[in-house]
């Protein structure tokens, strides 16, 4: 079974999801995981599909005017490694170049794997929230390193355990 990674982005308007998912269904592409959101007036979709060839999907998406699409064949996910501890990193401060680069480099250097990240720019305020899987026992050391990086950037950072309520 082909597994495809697809990205679609274009100026936001009504019907983008309907148009794209209809085109995908038309060539037998089954949507597994996806995130779709509006970013500063652009609608952005990141999709994993199974089914058809990359060429078939490219052809199906081509007629959708105004949308930039990329399609790439990928390997299915390997067995997930759930050894890490889930943490949340919050960063906020005055917008400046390189906040994401500096913060994520510190996380990566500690062996932390970022599984989800969003940023928002709201006037002069820049906000970064990241969900991170950390190697066991590494959080305290990472918190110190993040504080140092945050000082250099002139932003605030908090690192805290992500809670999961199992019901």
């Amino acid at each position, binding site marked *: 079974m082909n597994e495809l990674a697809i990205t679609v982005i274009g100026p936001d308007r009504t019907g983008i999801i309907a148009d794209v998912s209809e085109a995908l269904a038309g060539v037998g592409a089954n949507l597994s995981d996806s995130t779709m959101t509006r970013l500063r007036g652009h609608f952005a979709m990141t999709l994993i599909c199974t089914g058809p060839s990359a060429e078939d999907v490219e052809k199906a998406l081509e007629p959708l005017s105004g949308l930039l699409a990329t399609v790439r064949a990928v390997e299915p996910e390997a067995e997930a490694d759930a050894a890490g501890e889930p943490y949340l990193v919050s960063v906020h401060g005055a917008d400046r170049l390189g906040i994401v680069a500096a913060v994520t480099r510190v996380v990566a250097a500690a062996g932390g794997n970022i599984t989800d990240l969003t940023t928002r720019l*709201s006037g002069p305020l820049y906000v970064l929230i990241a969900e991170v899987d950390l190697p066991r026992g590494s959080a305290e050391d990472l918190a110190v390193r993040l504080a140092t990086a945050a000082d250099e950037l002139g932003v605030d950072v908090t690192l805290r355990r992500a809670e999961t309520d199992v019901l």
Partner: protein
Amino acid sequence: MSDALAGWKPDLLGVDGRVLPVVTAPAEVLSRPGAEVDPADPEVVQLAADLVATMRVSPGCVGLAAPQVGVGAQVFVVDVTEHPKTATSHGTFVLCNARVVEASRWRPGREGCMSVPDLTGDVKRAGRVVVEAVLPGTGEAVRLATDAFEARALQHEIDHCAGKLFLDRVAGAHAVYQRKVYL
């Protein structure tokens, strides 16, 4: 001790409050822990009155902490009387040097903040708290038990006094939102 709040009114401060400009992030004062205050200090009493006055003119405002008017001090006002999510309410009150001493019944809720005007976020807070503090002016000790929206407001304001914003407590990467509803 919480009876002290029952009879408390902003008039008891004995000074007129001034409406102060509200500071927004990323202002440094919002990120610094506020200093403990002497509740009898005339400047603290004036600050308490100013917080009440500034809250009153701000539509939808249910609480305001000193750092939000540019003062790094542990003083805040709360009034959730009119809010639909309120269960218990103690009216309008100003607290100094407040601490949460008991917290339970944690639940998520969407929060906004006058100092982060264009974003909101999902934050887990205790639905029942006991807070200890002192009143501005008299310095009388207060032990306040409350719930629901007043408990959330108290935790939000105590966070301000500790140099924290709701952004430091949001529940996940997709728990911060562009504000859609303007009051």
